[in-house]
């Protein structure tokens, strides 16, 4: 019997040596003369256990990890002894508590299947959603999305079905679906993981969106920092087209949908939806004033739906299992599941998909296991560089759009970055202002110039000059940013700055200079 091994080719696993592990295992298997197949998968998202090697056994998969390249041969000995004992043996992957406690709707297949096998994808329920959607009229498909309660996962949490309906009802000879895969927030990697680990899911979700809205073409705008995701998406699009899942006649329906990948060029602000459209059009990525909404006047002046990757990959499940089943998960107005990303100084970092409502403390302390350094948690930043820093005193906050907003925070794209007690919160506040000044698109004065002034004023505080007056100046500046910015880059930079000042004021005392970088 052919031995089947599974090794991720996810960028995170590759960064930890998965390629060398695969090569060493293949060489050793040849030496042993064992007939084998090595399937390269996505990652299951248990990054502290990557590279994770799995073997198929009659009783199901058995996992080993983290397998450093030097451990490959000894792990193989154990695998060849009937998936036997080894210090790195983890047992059945599904039984690992971190995975077992999740509700994986969007990430059900990620890490398990060969991302570029359409047969694997379909065998695991792929394209059932599109088949169901094709049987509905466009408006009924849109009603399904509205009923599911799905809200945008890119940050703003706007109801997805309403956006689709606006674009569907807008007049236009051409319409577009644009997938926002710019994923610029530090602490987030779910878009990357799903594009690398289950690309047909995104293709299926975008195709459903295109057919529902009446758009014939979609673009996936992927940041250039993600070369592996770009390669996987491009390969998957070719395969889908060859099988009639994209092109002029999707699944024999007589209706067409095409997809193209566009690559960003290292500008954080291009994740903002209108700057992203300008970027695809070949311009500087500058934020456009709204109205007009992109759903009415979007890409190349045509009605355009822009959705985050995680929004679009939630769609096939909603169609295959029903809107009601989806909305049964969650709390309040946050329905369904959120692929949460545990990052930074955390023992069990990775992808944790769960229904909305789990508390921040449960995520950090219980599921994440506290810090990687073993020191106490001091702060967590939720929602990327524009998100607030929360102290453990706020760990009872449930993961929910409204609950975070009520505490002057945001969930953003679902990234949680953990810091231990060695963090200098004045330094983090300074970084937030500096990031804003570097990444500003330049349209609004507070964002472009105020952020630079903010860095200077903060440096004065840290040099011990007029501390009280200068801190008051920073608070003023945050008010100006909040109300005088066209988009959330300027508008939300006050979140990290003010949360640091509010919850960690003791750090804003004279320092040695921070400006050296």
């Amino acid at each position, binding site marked *: 019997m052919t031995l089947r091994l599974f090794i991720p080719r996810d960028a995170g696993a590759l*960064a930890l040596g998965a390629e060398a592990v695969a090569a060493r295992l293949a060489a050793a298997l040849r030496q042993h003369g064992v007939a084998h197949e090595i399937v390269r998968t996505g990652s299951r998202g248990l990054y*502290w256990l990557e590279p994770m090697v799995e073997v198929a056994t009659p009783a199901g998969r058995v996992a080993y990890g983290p397998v450093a390249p030097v451990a490959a041969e000894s792990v193989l000995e154990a695998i060849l002894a009937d998936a036997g004992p080894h210090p790195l043996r983890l047992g059945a992957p599904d039984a690992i508590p971190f995975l077992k406690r999740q509700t994986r709707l969007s990430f059900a297949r990620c890490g398990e299947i060969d991302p570029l096998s359409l047969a694997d994808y379909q065998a695991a329920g792929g394209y059932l959603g599109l088949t169901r959607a094709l049987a509905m009229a466009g408006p009924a498909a849109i009603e399904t999305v509205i009923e599911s309660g799905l809200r945008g996962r890119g940050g703003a949490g706007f109801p997805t079905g309403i956006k689709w309906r606006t674009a569907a009802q807008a007049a236009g000879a051409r319409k577009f679906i644009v997938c926002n895969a710019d994923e610029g927030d*530090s*602490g987030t990697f779910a878009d990357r993981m799903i594009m690398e680990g289950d690309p047909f899911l995104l293709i299926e979700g975008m195709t459903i969106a295109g057919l529902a809205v009446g758009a014939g073409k979609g673009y996936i705008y992927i940041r*250039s*920092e993600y070369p592996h995701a770009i390669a996987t998406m491009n390969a998957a699009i070719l395969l889908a087209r060859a099988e009639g899942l994209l092109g002029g006649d999707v699944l024999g329906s007589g209706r067409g949908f095409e997809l193209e990948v566009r690559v960003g060029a290292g500008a954080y602000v291009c994740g903002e939806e209108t700057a992203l459209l300008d970027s695809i059009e070949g311009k500087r990525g500058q934020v456009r004033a709204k109205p007009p909404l992109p759903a009415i006047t979007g890409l190349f002046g045509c009605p355009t739906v822009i959705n985050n990757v995680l929004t679009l990959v939630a769609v096939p499940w909603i169609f295959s299992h029903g809107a009601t089943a989806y909305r049964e998960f969650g709390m309040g107005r946050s329905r369904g599941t959120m692929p949460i990303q545990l*990052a930074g100084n955390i023992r069990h970092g990775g992808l944790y998909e769960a229904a909305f409502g789990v508390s921040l403390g449960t995520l950090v302390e219980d599921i994440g296991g506290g810090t*990687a350094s073993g020191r106490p948690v001091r702060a967590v930043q939720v929602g990327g560089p524009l998100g607030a820093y929360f102290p453990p005193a706020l760990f009872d906050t449930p993961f929910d759009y409204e609950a975070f907003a009520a505490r002057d925070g945001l969930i953003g794209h679902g990234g949680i970055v*953990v810091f231990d007690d060695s963090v200098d919160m004045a330094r983090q506040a300074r970084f937030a202002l500096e990031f804003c000044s570097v990444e500003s698109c330049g349209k609004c004065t507070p964002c472009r110039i105020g952020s630079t002034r903010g860095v200077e004023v903060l440096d004065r505080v840290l040099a011990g000059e007029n501390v009280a007056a200068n801190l008051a100046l920073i608070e003023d500046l945050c008010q100006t940013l909040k109300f005088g910015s066209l988009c959330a880059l300027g508008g939300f930079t006050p979140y990290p700055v003010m949360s640091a000042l509010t919850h960690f004021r003791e750090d804003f005392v004279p320092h040695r200079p921070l400006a050296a970088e």
Partner: protein
Amino acid sequence: MASSQPRVSDLAWDADRAAAIIAAHAGTEGPLLPALHALQAAFGHIPAEAVPALAHAFNLSRADVHGVVSFYHDFRDHPAGRHVLRLCRAEACQAMGGDGLAARARARLGVGWGETTADGALTLEPVFCLGLCACGPSAMLDGALHGRLDAAALDALLDEVAP
């Protein structure tokens, strides 16, 4: 093993080669970014001579093209060193000691951000997140990813490309 950047001999301006690259994007809607990426892949930077060629081909002003090139952090106006090390400076990597690693790299190489060592071996660039935030600090060396870096791992990477 990290593959290196295009060879210096390949980076010289070649009008015909550039024209062919630009022409290949003529049928694309919104061709400028794809064309710039292709030019940078070929020449290691965006040569100044490419700006009028792009403007002409896509019916834009030179100022428009220049504005786009200068807006995006990815596009270089001169070639990088033989190797490029991009160190992540974003928050999740900061939480794992990224700032200390960055200081170590700069001190050892004697360069600031965006600068190339005197012998042309290596360019050091900041990057704001590589999507490896659960296994930081992270870096990309000539397209190869590295996670859970510490001082010893960073030194080993640098030994390989900038001994």
